[in-house]
């Protein structure tokens, strides 16, 4: 479903990726962990075409993003990136809801304007999604009237409304306090249980071990270890993985 091969990217002398490769199968839930700045967020942004990369290849549902991701993409390239984005739902750390639209408008805007869905259908679908995240009562509220956790759940509903084939979560709970993070994580868990292909960059190790089919550990722009959570969290093979988990979990 998502195929990343030999990804290289640098900012001047600063090397961000040095040959990152991995694959995500349909229905798989892959969790990316690693220290801040290790590249786990950036790789999600590369997949979604929000960041450029220098060399390597990214393929999403058969659409390739290898040679085109330059500063000023040509028209056809921009269209390719857009086709990739239509396959993917993206959820950001900062929610990025549209503040001038109500919750309902946030969820119906893209289906109507991008997919050309009928207004009535889009609204009916949005209400279904809002029900699923327990926010059907907030349809007419503006984002600023919601808590952080509620905003993030709306952001998930907004992405789902585009019927993506996979969901990318870029540290979805990092700016939330634990209680609100819980609401958001349970929504993500439900999605994974329903079989949605999912990539999650997160610092929530408990959640990662519980929801992940596979864990990928990033450090300094490389993948240092990958494996099922049972193995990564109990008996990591790589020293740096062990050190990282030590720091965040205070054990080993």
């Amino acid at each position, binding site marked *: 479903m998502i195929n990343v091969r030999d990804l290289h990217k640098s900012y001047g002398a600063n090397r961000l990726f040095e040959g990152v490769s991995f694959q995500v199968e349909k229905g798989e839930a892959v969790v990316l962990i690693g220290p801040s700045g290790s590249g786990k967020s950036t790789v999600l942004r590369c997949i979604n075409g929000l960041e450029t990369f220098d060399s390597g290849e990214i393929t999403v549902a058969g659409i390739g993003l290898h040679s085109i991701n330059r500063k000023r993409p040509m028209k056809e390239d921009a269209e390719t990136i857009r086709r990739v984005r239509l396959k993917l739902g993206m959820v950001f750390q900062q929610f990025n809801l549209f*503040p001038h639209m109500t919750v309902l408008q946030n969820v119906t805007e893209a289906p109507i304007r991008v*997919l050309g869905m009928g207004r009535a259908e889009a609204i009916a679908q949005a209400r279904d999604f809002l029900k699923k995240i327990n926010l059907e009562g907030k349809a007419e509220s*503006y984002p600023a009237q919601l808590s952080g956790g509620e905003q993030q759940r709306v*952001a998930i509903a907004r*992405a789902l409304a585009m019927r993506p084939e996979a969901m990318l979560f870029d540290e979805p709970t990092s700016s939330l306090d634990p209680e609100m993070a819980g609401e958001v994580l349970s929504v993500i868990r439900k999605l994974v249980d329903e079989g949605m292909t999912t990539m999650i960059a997160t610092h929530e190790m408990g959640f990662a071990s519980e929801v992940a089919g596979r864990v990928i550990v990033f450090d300094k722009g490389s993948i240092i270890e990958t494996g099922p959570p049972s193995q990564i969290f109990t008996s990591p093979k790589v020293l740096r993985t062990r050190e990282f988990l030590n720091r965040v979990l205070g054990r080993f």
Partner: protein
Amino acid sequence: MSRLLKFLLLLAGIAAVIYMAAPSKPKESTLEKIKKRGYLLWGSDAEGGAPYAFPNPKNPSKLVGFEVDLAGAIARELGVKKAVQSQNAWDSLIPALERGDFDFAMNGIEITKKRMEHVLFSAPYYVYTEQLVVRRDDSSIKSVADLKGKKVGTLSGTVAQDILMGMRGVNVRIYSGQVEPYQDLALGRLDAVLLDLPIAAYYARPNPALKFAGPPVGEGLYAIAIRKNDTELKKRLDEILAKLYRTGELKRIYEKWGLWNSKQDKLAAFFKNSGAETLDESRSAPIKNFFPMLLKGAGVTVLISVSSMALAITLGLMLTLLRLYAGPPFDWLATGYIEIYRGTPLLIQLYILYYGLPNIGISLNPVMAAFLGLGMNYAAYESELYRAGINAVPFGQMEAALSLGMKRGLALKRVILPQAVKIALPGITNDFIALFKDSSLVSVIAMVELTKTYSMLAASTLRFFQLGIITALLYFGMSYPLSLLARRLEKKLKKDRR
């Protein structure tokens, strides 16, 4: 960015419409045009004032003056119904005539060699002299010969100015209105004023603080200025002036205005009891007489401001989009436009649009020039406001919109601009109020709006204070509701941000 292409096409369309709206070069002779039109259109500056052509204090929407009478007589002789005055700043009457704004110019225009290079002159209709005026208590200046080392005021572009400039050691102060020199003289800012006798007779003689010094000097001739190729019109005007002189009608007009045989001070007796408007009468006319004209001026001001603001807002938005998203060379073209328009005075831009473009064959009418001048200037400022607003929208908004599969244009329209406009709105309304007041600048390109109406009325009545307060109140009465409206709009838009 096909949307941008559309914008550019639209711009080209606007340019085409403007070009077509511009008056085309005259093909038929002016004489034929007058006949066809049914009235005579003559150029003069009513702000130049009494006694040539100025708003009647009793009924300010009507012009009076000896040249108004003369124009009426000429129209009658030409066999048309009436003569209509076309307002134009005095020092640009000749360029406006060359542009074809009116049939001929008649406004105390002296025959000079320099002017003869540009226009044809009719036979002279008045022999003027220059009159020196000093303060009543000043006995040190008895004639033009005593002016060495003195501060002497006169009008820009007059023969009096040439006389003064030709004398050594005189400190010449140039004015653009004929009232101000006498005011400054009375206040002691000047030692003397040298101006055409008709002006001195109207403005200086009734002033008890001033007196005439010495005999008139520098005889010269007023004549009607005609476009170079209008020889036919010139011939006809010469015949008419000769007839008016023969029949004594010319004399009657001048007698009515106290100007006949004007080298003699004793002719002032005619001036008093002639039935013509005098300065004393203008001063005592009830102030409400001036309201209709001021209100009409205010209407023109509103029209110009609203339409040019609409242009500024749309053009400004295009500039911002070009600058931020179009890529080279459009981005630097837009940046260049903005910097040039912000870095040069609006007044110069207006002059170039109205008086400069005809040199290269593009002649805009005053309304179009004012609309374009103000709108294109303010577009540069609006564009910067939009840019600041767009930059203030968090980058994550664009990313979120793109990741939902929106194209850049759609994301801009639906997500970024609505938020950016909200941020820019206080600045935009502020600019609208500023533009509203800046619209007074278009009076230099022959638009008779509120400020121009004020200065015309004030110059002929000397009621600068009362009329000034009323005019200022009119401006305030229009701009204050605007700020209230803006505040309400801001509050309403803020709601969803809470």
